């Protein structure tokens, strides 16, 4: 029961992200209807390099719609090591050679100007650098570092969902859309990175803190138990 509750936040996060991703994927189908222009494209056009921008948008949306990075940390895929490795390789290639480059192209024409462009580039840099670190850690067999790096990758990908939810929330309370766009990008990017660091600190830290362990070690009863455990074999030898 305790274990169930311990895993509850992680499971809730995973389900929320899968549902959010499904909604985004459904609303992104319009990008592949070549006859009409979705509202986001109408809003953005004209852009400097229209063909490149549109191709990048479609690549970015198509790759982001695959929930591979969300499925990899699930226990079912972690138990199947060979499958986990292969799907991990596919994810790594897609993220590093399609998602991040297309995201960088889109970032330079992001609405909201330089502040938003930098926000998207920071997120892309976190994803790319931690994906590389995560892959190299996995190849070395360093599971702790691999987990930490992949958490950062998934957390930055979750910005797609949290940012859109935040945009809806800020619109509901009447915040100016230009201000909301900046807040809904930088907030989740920074918060996601911070949450990963906190979660990783908690998981790396021993279950019992050092102070508590010291206190227990020098507690009179604990000392007595230790003395007895040392004395008992000697007494047995004497018999």
């Amino acid at each position, binding site marked *: 029961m305790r274990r169930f509750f311990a895993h509850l936040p992680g499971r809730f996060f995973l389900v929320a992200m899968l549902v*959010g991703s499904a*909604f*985004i994927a*459904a*609303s*992104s189908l319009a990008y592949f209807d070549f*006859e*009409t*222009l*979705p*509202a*986001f494209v*109408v*809003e953005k*056009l*004209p852009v400097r390099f229209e063909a490149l921008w549109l191709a990048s948008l479609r690549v970015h949306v198509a790759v982001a719609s695959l929930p591979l990075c969300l499925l990899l940390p699930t226990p079912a895929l972690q138990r199947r090591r060979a499958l986990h490795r292969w799907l991990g390789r596919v994810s790594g290639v897609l993220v590093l050679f399609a998602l991040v480059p297309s995201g960088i192209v889109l970032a330079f024409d992001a*609405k909201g100007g330089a502040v938003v462009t930098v926000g998207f580039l920071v997120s892309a840099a976190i994803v790319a650098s931690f994906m590389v670190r995560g892959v190299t850690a996995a190849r070395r067999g360093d599971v702790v570092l691999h987990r930490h790096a992949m958490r950062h990758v998934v957390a930055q990908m979750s910005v797609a*969902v949290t*940012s*859109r*939810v935040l*945009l*809806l929330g800020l*619109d509901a309370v*009447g*915040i*100016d*859309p230009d201000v909301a*766009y900046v807040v809904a990008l930088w907030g989740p990017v920074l918060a996601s990175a911070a949450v990963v660091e906190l979660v990783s600190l908690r998981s790396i830290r021993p279950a019992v803190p050092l102070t508590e362990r010291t206190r227990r070690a020098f507690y009179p009863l604990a000392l007595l138990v230790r003395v007895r455990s040392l004395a008992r074999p000697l007494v047995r030898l004497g018999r």
Partner: protein
Amino acid sequence: MCAFALSLVPSFASADEPSLAEWAQRRVEDGLVKPLAELEGHRMSRARPPPRERHVRVLQTSATLDKGGHPFVSFAVDVRFGSEWRENDIVGCAYTGSGDLYVKKGDAYRPASFLLGKNEEPVAGVCEAVPARS
């Protein structure tokens, strides 16, 4: 005599007929603002959320001729998201003869259906008044 005869001919511009500005306002509302409102919705998208309100302003009381000699009236659409109005969110023109609507995107004018999702290319020369001769 002629003046008397003309006065007996019913006028095309009756008292109930809207002025040019009223006609243009109604045309923009029916041809752009209402279809936009029907199209927009809150989606899981990075697109700008639909405004709470739109208001059409007709910028001229009389028509201007473009290079092709076609009369048009310029308009602007203001939007409200929170409490403040944002002016000139959409800028364009309505042709009095055909009723065609054009909107400005970047430096060019495109048919207003572009804002409704149709992939329309910019049209040269529309909504541009003929320079006055000195």
